[in-house]
């Protein structure tokens, strides 16, 4: 691993002590890698090799039994010019941005509502947090039933209570994407609540008191005392959630499967359909590689600006 591993036999004439020291040093340099080996091996085989393979396959026309054929950038041009894929990217952006913004707003409201030390509030927070720990597939099945299209479905009966007619949420191409977004917000908002609550706990209580003495309104107090204290946490959460939103898969796959009429098709469900249903491995790989590149680029950019922000 390092220079200390040079074969010690050459120094046969030297004192034994030196030799012993060398082996100890060599062992010391070797040891960390022994501990790292399982993790690095698993990451290599199941993360980096598939990544490399994906990049490799994206340049080929993959034909089982016939042998793959190099076709350069054809997969990319074909997939990127496919209007169904372009639609899917559009849906992904709408879903990712809308969901992250919605979840942060709802999470903020929840945090403001449930802030406090009493026992009943703690129990409330525990209950409200349930959607976060529930597996996405379970949430999907639950919401499919809640969105039941007739007027006695759960959401529709709540709407009926408000005097609104029943909506076939998931069967209507105009509403399906928004219905998916609502479910996403429901899943993530309590998570944001916890983060924002941690930020709220750090606000100096005497500031609130001073604000009251100065006679500021509730809105001003939120705007100028509370918000600045939690802004750093919110900024990070929001950006990373939006980037993570690009690779949304399970929610959409379970809730709508991309339908109706492709109205909720997103980037990854499209790649999945290409790869596993239509057996277009090359095209699916190209779609995944583009997503990976965009994700990496955005993450690195965000972190760059964050670091610069930290320095300032």
């Amino acid at each position, binding site marked *: 691993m390092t220079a200390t591993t040079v074969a010690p036999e050459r120094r046969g004439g030297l004192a034994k002590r030196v030799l012993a020291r060398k082996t100890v040093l060599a062992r010391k340099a070797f040891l*960390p*890698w022994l*501990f*790292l080996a*399982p*993790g*690095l091996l*698993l*990451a290599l085989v*199941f*993360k980096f*090799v*598939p*990544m490399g*393979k*994906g990049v490799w396959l994206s340049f080929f026309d993959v034909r089982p039994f016939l042998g793959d054929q190099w076709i350069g950038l054809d997969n990319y041009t074909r997939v990127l010019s496919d209007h169904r894929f372009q639609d899917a990217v559009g849906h992904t952006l709408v879903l990712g941005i809308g969901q992250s913004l919605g979840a942060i707003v709802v999470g903020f409201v929840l945090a*403001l*509502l449930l*802030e*406090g*030390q009493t026992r009943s509030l703690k129990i409330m927070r525990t209950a*409200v*947090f*349930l*959607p976060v*720990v*529930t*597996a*996405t*597939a*379970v949430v999907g*099945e*639950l919401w499919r039933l809640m969105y*039941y299209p*007739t007027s006695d*479905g*759960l959401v529709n009966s709540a709407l009926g209570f408000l005097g609104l007619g029943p909506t076939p949420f998931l069967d209507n191409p105009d509403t399906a994407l928004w219905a998916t977004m609502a479910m996403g917000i429901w899943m993530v908002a*309590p*998570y944001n609540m916890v983060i924002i609550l*941690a930020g709220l*706990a750090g606000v100096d*209580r005497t500031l*609130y*008191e001073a604000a009251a003495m100065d006679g500021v309104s*509730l809105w001003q*107090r939120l705007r100028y005392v*509370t918000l600045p204290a939690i802004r750093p*946490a919110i900024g990070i959460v929001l950006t*990373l959630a939006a980037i993570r939103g690009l*690779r949304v*898969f*399970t929610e959409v*796959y*379970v809730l709508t499967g991309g339908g109706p009429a492709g109205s909720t098709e997103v980037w990854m469900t499209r790649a999945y359909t290409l790869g596993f249903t239509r057996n277009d*491995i090359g095209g699916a790989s190209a779609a995944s590689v583009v*997503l*990976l590149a965009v994700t*990496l680029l955005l993450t690195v950019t965000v*972190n760059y600006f964050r670091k610069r922000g*930290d320095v300032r």
Partner: protein
Amino acid sequence: MSAPALDPVRTPSSDEAAAASRRADKQARTTPARFDTALGWNDRPGVSWVLRILLCAIALGIFAAPFLTILSGSLSTHPSGSSLSFLPHDSTLTNFRVAGERGIWDYFTNSLVIAGGGLLLQLVVCVLAAYALARHRFRGQAIVMTLFMLTMMLPEEVIAIPLSLVLGDVPVVGLDLKGTVWGVILPLGAWGFSVMLLTEFMKDIPSEIEEAARLDGVGELRMLWQVILPLCKPALGVAGVLGFIMIWDQYLLPLIAAKDPTDYTVTVALSILRTDPEVGSGVVLAGAVIALVPSLVVYLLLQRSLVTGIAAGATKG
């Protein structure tokens, strides 16, 4: 990708929170409680008090009540999707029996084996890696750290297609992991988040403890097992509960690692129940309850670890 202080037990904010609540307690005698919260909620009965209870009820109705409908729906005899309500009209266990006939308990066993084995492997692998990264200095340390962070950006979704090829024919050894639990367990082993979390925590253990143990002639493995690990219990709790929830939430990985539907986990199998024309939504909900219980138990038992973990993870991103 900065690596800021990540200390799941005592985040600065929790210290500040404790200090703030102490301050608040001291002031409680002189100043009203309305300075304790951002919105200035009053804890005495009044307009704002009633309003808060009302809003809390709405929040509970939106975020928690749907879970009651899962339970009540799974217990009703009329398993029609339109008859969801908060309380079952007439309770019965028929739905669970039917779900059992469709093999839900086999799927559940698959899930438990994968979650148990996956979590054990993940914790062992991540603890070993974190120990090397936190308590040793070696060349290439920064690169290794970056590699682990990169794994967080390579979730199963993005590499699904090539990963399914790799699972069918693992490079060098040429094994076919498809259709075995290893196909799901092994890809979950190296979880970057867990490595980061444990590394940051282990770095904060004072080196005097380690030096004292070394003078007593303690070897590397005993050092990790008997000296470092007992001091890491809080971080292990966080890594454990987040790891479990992450593994239980896996959907695409069990889907692509399966050879045929009997290899599915319980969460994936829910879609089989749903598309089965002979069973109604009551049975699907019974399956959902079964899939829900383990994560619920883990959450309620380790709630504290989970919340501190999320609050700490937020500052890290």
